[in-house]
């Protein structure tokens, strides 16, 4: 009575077919990642050295290092974080812990989703209009970082809100029922139990910010500057723009140089992403609920 029928055989064939199909698709996903990384390492590794990171470009940017670009990217990302993290985390706390489900909240949520979908070139133009011209910051680190901050704000808000919402409601109720206020509960229960999740989101934001080219090019990054920025009102060089410049704008650049820049850029992102994965696994291990 339990024999295999023709129909079973057909089902099994379909089953196998789909399994292989899906496997192939996930392979398709992985191959380019490794191809890109391998290619970059192969081409760019010869350019890498300590001196490459710590010296200035020479000979009209056809030789030498990337110090000012590296330094500038750190500036840009740092200032962008100083702005977007407090605002983003506060907004996420409001949306997750305070907001009632009414039209205001729905409008805010809609705004976040739409902000996340705006192309970076549009953000760049907005940055020029708002920060460079209207607020008269000029093309500067401040204008560029604010543009980056606006652009990545939705990422921070969404990831932070998810981290907050992962904290079990029972924890909040335990705290409320002891007579703790909403804020005391957030401060002593919700945030301590979502800290690593929030941090993960922020790191992912950083890794997105590091590589952005167009917004900083419009608002604060220069092709070449003979000095390091000393305040947020200076212009700066940036890794992403530098890569664009040495690849397309400067004649006679040896092939390994742009690949070296690209490799440093991607290593920065990789290091940050691994850090975020590490945080996440630490969070999982610590979580006993």
């Amino acid at each position: 009575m339990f024999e295999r029928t023709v129909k079973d055989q057909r089902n099994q064939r379909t089953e196998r077919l789909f399994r292989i199909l899906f496997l192939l698709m996930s392979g398709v996903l992985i191959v380019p990642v490794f191809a890109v990384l391998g290619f970059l390492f192969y081409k760019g590794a010869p350019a890498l050295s300590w001196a490459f990171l710590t010296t200035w470009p020479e000979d009209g940017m056809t030789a030498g290092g990337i110090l000012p670009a590296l330094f500038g990217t750190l500036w840009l990302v740092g200032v962008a974080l100083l702005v977007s993290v407090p605002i983003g985390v506060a907004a996420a706390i409001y949306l997750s812990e305070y907001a009632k489900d009414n039209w205001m909240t729905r409008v805010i949520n809609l705004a976040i989703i739409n902000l996340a979908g705006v192309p970076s070139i549009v953000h760049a133009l907005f940055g020029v209009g708002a920060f460079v011209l209207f607020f008269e910051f000029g093309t500067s680190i401040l204008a560029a970082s604010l543009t980056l901050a606006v652009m990545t704000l939705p990422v921070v808000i969404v990831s932070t809100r998810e981290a907050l919402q992962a904290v079990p409601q029972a924890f909040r109720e335990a705290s409320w029922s002891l007579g703790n206020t909403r804020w005391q509960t957030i401060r002593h229960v919700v945030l301590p139990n979502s800290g690593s999740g929030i941090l993960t989101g922020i790191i992912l934001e950083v890794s997105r910010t590091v590589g952005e080219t167009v917004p900083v090019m419009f608002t604060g990054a220069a092709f070449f500057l003979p000095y390091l920025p000393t305040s947020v009102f200076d212009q700066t060089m940036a890794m992403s723009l530098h890569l664009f410049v040495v690849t397309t704008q400067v004649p006679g650049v040896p092939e390994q140089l742009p690949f070296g820049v690209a490799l440093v850029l991607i290593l920065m992102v990789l290091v940050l992403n691994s850090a975020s994965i590490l945080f996440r696994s630490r969070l999982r291990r610590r979580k006993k609920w």
Partner: protein
Amino acid sequence: MAEPQASAIRTRGLNLWYGDFQALFDVDLDVAPKQVTSLIGPSGCGKSTLLRSINRINERIDSVRMEGEIRVLGHDVLAPEIEKAQLRKRVGMVFQRPNPLPLSIRDNVLFGWRIDHGGRPDKDEGEALLEESLRRVLLWDRVKDRLGQRATGLSLEEQQKLCIARLLPVQPQVLLMDEPCSALDPAATSAVEELIWELREQYTILLVTHNMAQARRASDDCVFMLMGKLVEKGPTGELFLTPQRQETADYIEGRYG
């Protein structure tokens, strides 16, 4: 203002809605001080809802709307000048699933007290409170050597006792317990039951339970609810022996859920 205190908890004409759905209908509840009052009724009849409106934790749900009067220790707790945080300190709550925070045993017990005392609570006072609270729930001897360990590693019975101990440092006078034993095995259930019986000397206890035998064993008074209405209340012995209402008799004899 406090009125002369007959009932520790007293509701009159209490109606409650979740959005358009009415969950409580004109509930008149009386809970005598320093006694255990059990609250029984089939699933979904509004026991938890009633319990959670007494410490006003229900109001954290956006759709909840309440009407009527709730008095705790003689005070009208729905009055505008009432500070909910103060109310909740006087009216502790124990949940169906033990919900210790992912902290050490010590930090769990002192959690509310430390926050209440702001920045730097006195350490010796804290240790004294810790021991006193854990002794009160008969847990001290079992955990005194591992106060720094995570509370989530305790057995469910110990966790539930810890959740009771956690309430004591902020000096509650009323304890609301929502099926505190339903996640526990029979041995643990009777241990927690004994503890509840013991605590009634000092605290007024309102105990929701599904377990008829538990209501009989562990309560002085009993209240029966059905579909959002309070059907019958009385001394537990009488209510179980000679229920006045047909619905009560049917429920006690196990004719519904």
